[in-house]
């Protein structure tokens, strides 16, 4: 029988029951591999439920550092009888099935082309622990112990992790180490180790850090100077606010007075959340909210106000599968259009697309600067995949000399000196007007902020020319924004090519891997990673420079492609859709296949015009 043989390059998936405490054990396993210098990218696949439903934890081990979901599973740790059949079916031929063999299963429950490793986990636990909760929790540690032997993971590394985790809690430390040894000893004695897939110490992690995007975004808000946060719980964004709270407790309590240099409000809904952020932004404090698609829908009236009345607002949208409640615990990039054009009337908003936790941090801080500079809502568009999963990425960086860009705010001195103040007047030619904060000057600089039209001096006016001046200026401001947002990242093919590919956000790692595979297969593409909307000039140039450009995204309706067509007036026929939208993170295999198929189909039919350029996911 075939046996998958691979060192530092495989996928292992844990099938567990939600609420059984498996996540921390699985994370421990992933982190141990990381500590051996081998990159991993784990993904939690969980239901919208607190206890009892199936949950999976998929770990990709890749010494090359590929962090995207690969697709396929080489080893299944099948701990959930409910999903047994599907879990077994998912294994690659020659793969490994690890299971709890306490209760015998009929041969029909197995496959002939996989290697089965049974371990009587329940029996072992029942013999040693009497408390049901302990039996459950230590069962997880025991299987981690056994797996460490099977896969060549260093036991001492795991013990070191325990020591860090349970510092000062000696009893817990001892019991965990004991459970680990139970698993390891059993495996050494009774199981065939090592397997064909295994881990070997390497030096491929380097300086990188291992962190989830939501924590990183929260930390970016701390560093970026946010003082007011308002939110309403919604998966997958809640942990942004929770992490902000945690970091505030650590970094923002004045040691001298014990007072908080922040205010966090868990509001009654998303309308109130954005209202609080608008009020704080109007009054000169940096403020943000974190939410997901349904929350953005509720916020849209306020987003229009903030756009039109020109108030700095930062919105972190950790996208999930929509529409409606959709797939609340699965990932998508399907709010591109609803955010880019959120609200009624003519509106456009700045969107940032971080690719990983490192950029979640960087872009969150940048969003706060941009919102102040541009006096407008700025969206940080992350998603569940990077938001809620720990990802290996470059360490966070902060330039000590960096100042906050508070934008154009007139001071009492400016006003006292008699500087002309037209709240909605373009005095600098960049479309961005000056503002004043409430309470600045006893007699000068006050104005009435409103969502209704007004003239350049903020006086109520429904005159056509006043209105047109204002909305044209907003367009000019948006052009200015294109030069201020994070610029696209270009990655040229190794040789000249007429093909390009555009991608963004959490698609990055899968795309980078796909580019390597495609290059090896002789398909060469120049790649452009979008990091923001409005699109800087280089994006239009990139489109002009290539006959065909694939637009890879994680939604059904090719929303980024629509935005490109709409904003840059490109011929839609030249933009080829590559769409993945079943709620799982996009894979390199999917992208590679989609692009390869298209390129080959083109070659075959190169004489006649191909009518339908569109590639759609066939499995959805």
């Amino acid at each position: 029988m075939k046996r998958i043989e691979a060192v530092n390059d495989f996928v292992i998936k844990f099938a567990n029951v939600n609420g059984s405490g498996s996540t921390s054990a699985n994370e421990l396993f992933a982190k141990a591999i990381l500590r051996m210098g081998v990159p991993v990218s784990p993904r939690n696949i969980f239901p919208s439920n607190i206890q009892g439903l199936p949950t999976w934890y998929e770990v990709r081990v890749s010494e090359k550092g590929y962090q995207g979901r690969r697709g396929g599973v080489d080893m299944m740790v099948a701990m959930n009888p409910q999903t047994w059949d599907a879990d077994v079916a998912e294994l690659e031929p020659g793969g490994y099935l690890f299971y709890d063999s306490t209760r015998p299963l009929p041969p029909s429950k197995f496959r002939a082309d996989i290697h089965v490793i049974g371990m009587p986990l329940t029996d072992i636990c029942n013999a040693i622990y009497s408390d049901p909760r302990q039996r459950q929790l230590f069962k997880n540690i025991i299987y981690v112990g056994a797996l460490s032997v099977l896969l060549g993971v260093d036991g001492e590394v795991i013990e070191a992790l325990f020591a860090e985790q349970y510092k000062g809690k000696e009893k817990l430390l001892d019991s965990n180490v004991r459970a680990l040894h139970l698993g390891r000893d059993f495996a050494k004695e009774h199981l065939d180790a090592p397997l064909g897939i295994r881990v070997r110490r390497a030096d491929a992690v380097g300086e990188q850090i291992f962190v989830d995007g939501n924590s990183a975004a929260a930390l970016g808000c701390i560093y970026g100077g946010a003082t007011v946060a308002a939110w309403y719980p919604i998966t997958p964004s809640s942990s942004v606010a929770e992490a902000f709270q945690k970091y505030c407790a650590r970094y923002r309590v004045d040691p001298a007075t014990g007072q908080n240099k922040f205010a966090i409000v868990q509001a009654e809904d998303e309308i109130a959340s954005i209202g609080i952020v608008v009020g704080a932004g109007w009054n000169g404090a940096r403020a943000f909210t974190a939410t997901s698609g349904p929350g953005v829908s509720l916020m849209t009236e306020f987003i229009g106000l903030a756009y039109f009345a020109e108030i700095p607002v930062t919105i972190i949208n950790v996208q999930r599968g929509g529409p409606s409640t959709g797939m609340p615990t699965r990932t998508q990039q399907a709010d591109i259009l609803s955010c880019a054009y959120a609200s009624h009337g003519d509106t456009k908003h700045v969107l940032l697309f971080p690719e990983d936790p490192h950029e979640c941090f960087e872009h969150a801080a940048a969003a706060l600067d941009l919102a102040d500079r541009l006096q407008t809502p700025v969206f940080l568009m992350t998603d569940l995949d990077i938001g809620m999963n720990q990802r290996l990425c470059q360490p966070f960086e902060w330039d000590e000399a960096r100042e906050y860009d508070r934008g154009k705010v007139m001071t009492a001195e400016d006003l006292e000196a008699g500087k002309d103040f037209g709240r909605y007047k373009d005095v600098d030619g960049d479309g961005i007007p000056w503002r004043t904060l409430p309470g600045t000057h006893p007699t000068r600089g006050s104005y009435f902020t409103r969502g209704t039209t007004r003239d350049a001096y903020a006086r109520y006016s429904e005159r056509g020319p006043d209105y047109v001046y204002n909305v044209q200026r907003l367009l000019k401001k948006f052009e200015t924004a294109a030069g201020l947002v994070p610029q696209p990242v270009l990655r040229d093919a190794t040789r000249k090519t007429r093909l390009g590919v555009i991608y963004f956000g959490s698609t990055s790692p899968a795309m980078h891997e796909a580019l390597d595979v495609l290059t090896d297969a002789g398909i060469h593409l120049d790649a452009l990673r979008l990091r923001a909307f409005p699109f800087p000039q280089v994006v239009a140039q990139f489109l002009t420079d290539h006959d065909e450009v694939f637009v890879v995204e994680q939604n059904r309706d090719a929303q980024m492609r629509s935005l490109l067509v709409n904003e840059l007036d490109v011929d839609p026929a030249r933009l080829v859709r590559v769409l993945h939208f079943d709620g799982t993170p996009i894979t390199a295999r999917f992208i590679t296949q989609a692009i390869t198929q298209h390129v080959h189909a083109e070659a075959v039919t190169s004489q006649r015009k191909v009518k339908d350029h569109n590639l759609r996911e066939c499995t959805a």
Partner: protein
Amino acid sequence: MTYLAKPRLHHPSLTTNKVGYTRRDYEGKISTLCAGCGHDSISAAIIQACWELDIEPHRVAKLSGIGCSSKTPDYFLGASHGFNTVHGRMPSVLTGANLANRDLLYLGVSGDGDSASIGLGQFAHVMRRGVCMVYIVENNGVYGLTKGQFSATADRGSKSKKGVINSDSPVDLIGMALQLGATYVARSFSGDKAQLVPLIKGAISHGGAAFIDVISPCVAFNNHAGSTKSYDYVREHNEAVNRIDFITPRSEITTDYAPGEVVEVLQHDGLTLRLRKLHDGYDPTDRLAAMNHVQTHQARGEVVTGLLYVDPDASDLHEALNTSATPLNALGRQELCPGAQALAKLNAALR
């Protein structure tokens, strides 16, 4: 200039207050409301109250929702920043503004549609949170700006101008504010300036969530016979529980009253409210009794007015959140950014 330019040369007979402003300095743009609209009287009362309390106009932030009532902040305190937000959501914007700068005075102006219909949720939650503010609802029982539809405070059985009888129960904002924890709750009538001005002054000096429901007749759509929000109806049914005689620092109180005739309430900023009782045994510091009294008398068709409840030990959201004495909007990078060294440590912990 976007503020309303006023001639700086005032008539010498115009008296200035302790901070050097005349009453005119508290005015705003010319009102565009209907002549006789109750809302304009409330604006005048706000102007009077701020002037008398020596509030510097620019230290006030005026926030409102949408409606005729919500337009009024443009018509008073022209030197203050104002924010006409979206319909029914002023409370959240005010909350955010207040969190950003605790040193200003926050005045929220709303209508009965704005607060009791579309904005009922935000009304409730801003009271729950105890945001330090003066929240005035200019209550006319209709949507003035959209031409006279019933609002959620219209009494059951009251008649619209077009003759339609309202069959829905009214939302009782006073009852809600009491129940949800507002620490200063009053009702007044736009036609009774002598009662209203001291109530606003009391609210300004309160230091917690202060709510005033002001019945404010809409002359265009709800001032006819059969309306319970008309000038005539309110005059006939007004039952004041007390009068604020005056508000002064404690040391300046000199007048003598017969025992049992007055209640004194020391406010947050050191000012004392002296309440003259108009209703036997009414204790404005007893929340439950206030709820009971208002409900009982309301059921009889009376419009109960006066300072219905006050908590002299009010606290506010900033206290609950333990926010720094320096306003959050005055903190800079130095105070807010943990710096590169802390980040290096954090990075190390993430390996």
